[in-house]
Structures are given as structure tokens and as C-alpha cells.
């Protein structure tokens, strides 16, 4: 179990996936916030200052990459993990430029995601 309530914001238009993250990450002791589009995600990020953002790329209204660009203008430090079903070379380069922690493909293994999040939380401690 996580010692502190590390806050994780999940930005993904798939409601079922947001619910899955709430469940699996909640069991690990994390506080999980969700947004179904980039605009809401940007607002919640500004208001709630999460430790980690899990971000989808293909979403209605604005893409995950554009969402991340806007988030990075105000918050360069938040850890971002991209999880996408539509990965390609261009978004990988964009993600690298925007300093993502990890770029993952869907479908994913729950245990792998939890492991990556734990490593990210630990690295945040080191960076602080």
C-alpha cells in the first residue's frame, strides 16, 4: 500500500477504463481523479495538483498531445504516463519532447502499470 495519498489524474475518454484505474489504483492506496477529455483534465490538473497524470492520446475535443502541451506550459514537473491504443512514431517523438515518464500501449497489463506508477512515485521522491 502507498504510504501517502499520492494523487493520480486519469485523462481518458473511455469511462470503463477510468473506472478500472479508480479500482486498481484505489486498492493500492492512491487517490484517483478522472477526466473524460483534455479540457476537463487541464482544469482538474490546475485545481488539484496531482502527482501523476495518466493520459490517453486519442480523445474528442483536443488530443492527448495538445492537452499535454497546455499542461506543460503551466506545470513542467508533473509526471505524465501516456497509455494509448493508437501509438505512432510522431506522437512518440512529441511525447519525448514533452518530457513524459513512460509511453505505453493499450491493452496493458494491470500489474505492469502499477509497477510503473510505483517507480514513478519513488522517482518523484528522489527528484524532490
Amino acid at each position: 500500500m502507498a504510504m501517502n495519498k499520492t494523487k493520480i489524474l486519469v485523462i481518458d475518454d473511455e469511462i470503463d477504463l477510468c473506472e478500472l484505474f479508480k479500482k486498481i489504483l484505489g486498492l493500492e492506496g492512491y487517490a484517483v481523479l478522472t477526466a473524460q477529455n483534455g479540457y476537463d483534465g487541464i482544469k482538474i490538473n490546475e485545481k488539484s495538483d496531482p502527482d501523476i497524470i495518466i493520459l490517453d492520446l486519442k480523445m474528442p475535443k483536443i488530443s492527448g498531445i495538445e492537452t499535454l502541451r497546455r499542461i506543460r506550459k503551466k506545470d513542467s514537473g508533473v509526471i505524465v504516463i501516456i497509455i494509448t491504443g493508437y501509438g505512432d512514431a510522431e506522437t512518440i517523438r512529441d511525447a519525448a519532447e514533452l518530457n513524459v515518464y513512460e509511453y505505453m500501449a493499450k491493452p496493458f497489463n494491470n500489474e505492469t502499470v502499477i509497477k510503473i506508477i510505483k517507480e514513478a512515485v519513488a522517482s518523484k521522491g528522489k527528484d524532490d
Partner: protein
Amino acid sequence: MTNIRYLIYVPVLHTQKETGEILLSLKADEAPPPADTSLAEQEKSVKEMWDGIHEKIQNTNISCPTIRIYQDGMPVCGKEKEIAGKLAQKSSRNHQLILDLLKKGANLEGTEDPDLLIEEYDNLSHLISKASVSIQSYRDSLNEYKEKGAKLMKQRDAFIAERIKSTLKEGETPLLFMGVRHELEKLLQSSFVINYIIYRLPFKKVRDIYNV
């Protein structure tokens, strides 16, 4: 009727060790570049990345005899299999996977212009040598490397794209293992439908100049 041609693109991250060894295959008389303190951690993450890619490739049920492999850093030299074998022996998961595919009937093609790879090696060596002088000296060299690197990458990509088009045989599917800095899709998407195989790319763990 036009036949649709598919291409399998696997974007990958390289460890510092791999980068050094790939480029050293061109200059066998030189010592490897200095190791980074987080090398073990880098290698563990990249190994996991390759394990995932290996599994995904197995699950795609591709017919290996119709696959022609194009590999980042693999010079056109007539010794491609030998180089892949040597790097696989040195624990490169990338090249171990290539050997596995070759055993199943896939073909490996020399991919890169050796002269351009040597230029890349020289630029990288120059940058690494500056790291031990001073931070300012390294920063200056880094900017210079990035500038030269972007131009060189365009030349390398142009060569690779042409190489793929000129060596691919009728009925074959190209399988590309390319570092994330390459922009080959821009040169190939007019000729191929590109399918990506991505498992995970641990950028933070492998935040190395060669990848970002």
C-alpha cells in the same frame, strides 16, 4: 488494381551501452564509451521493453519467411548477420530477437549508410569526450551535436527509406526496428500502410541524448 503494402514499424529506445556497441561495430579498434551510473537500471527497463515487443511480435502470427528486417544502426556491409550475432552474444535483446526471427526464416537487410553511421559515431564520441571537461563545454557540444544530429538523421532516414524500397522483394513485408528519433514514417507512409508494434517506452529511465 493496386496491392496494398504493409510495413511493421517498431519504435525503440537504445541504452547507452547498445548505442556504443552498435556504433563500435564500425570501429572495432576503439574502446567503448564511458558507462553511466544508472546503466543497470536502463538495461533492465530496455530488456522489459524488448520482452514485450518479442511477445507482441509472436502474437501477430507474422509469416517469418516473408519478413525483411531493417535495423537501426545496421550498416550495409555484407556482414549483417555476423554483426547481429556478435551483439546478441553481448546480451542485446534487440539482436537476440533478430536472430530468433532469422532462425524462423526472416531475412536481415543492411539498412544504413556506413559513412553516415561513422559520422554519427564521431559526433557522439566528440560529445562524450566533452562531458568530462566541464558542464559548459558539454552544453556547447550538446547544442552542436543536436544541430548536426538533426541534419544527419534526415540523411540517414533518406538512405534507409530508399534502401527499403530498393531491396524489398515482391510479397515481402518490411519489419523496422528504429530508434525514436527517426522520422521514417514521413518518407514511407505514401508507399506503405504502417502498422506499429509498441509495448512500452520507458523514457525517464532511458533519457539519453541518443533517444531524445
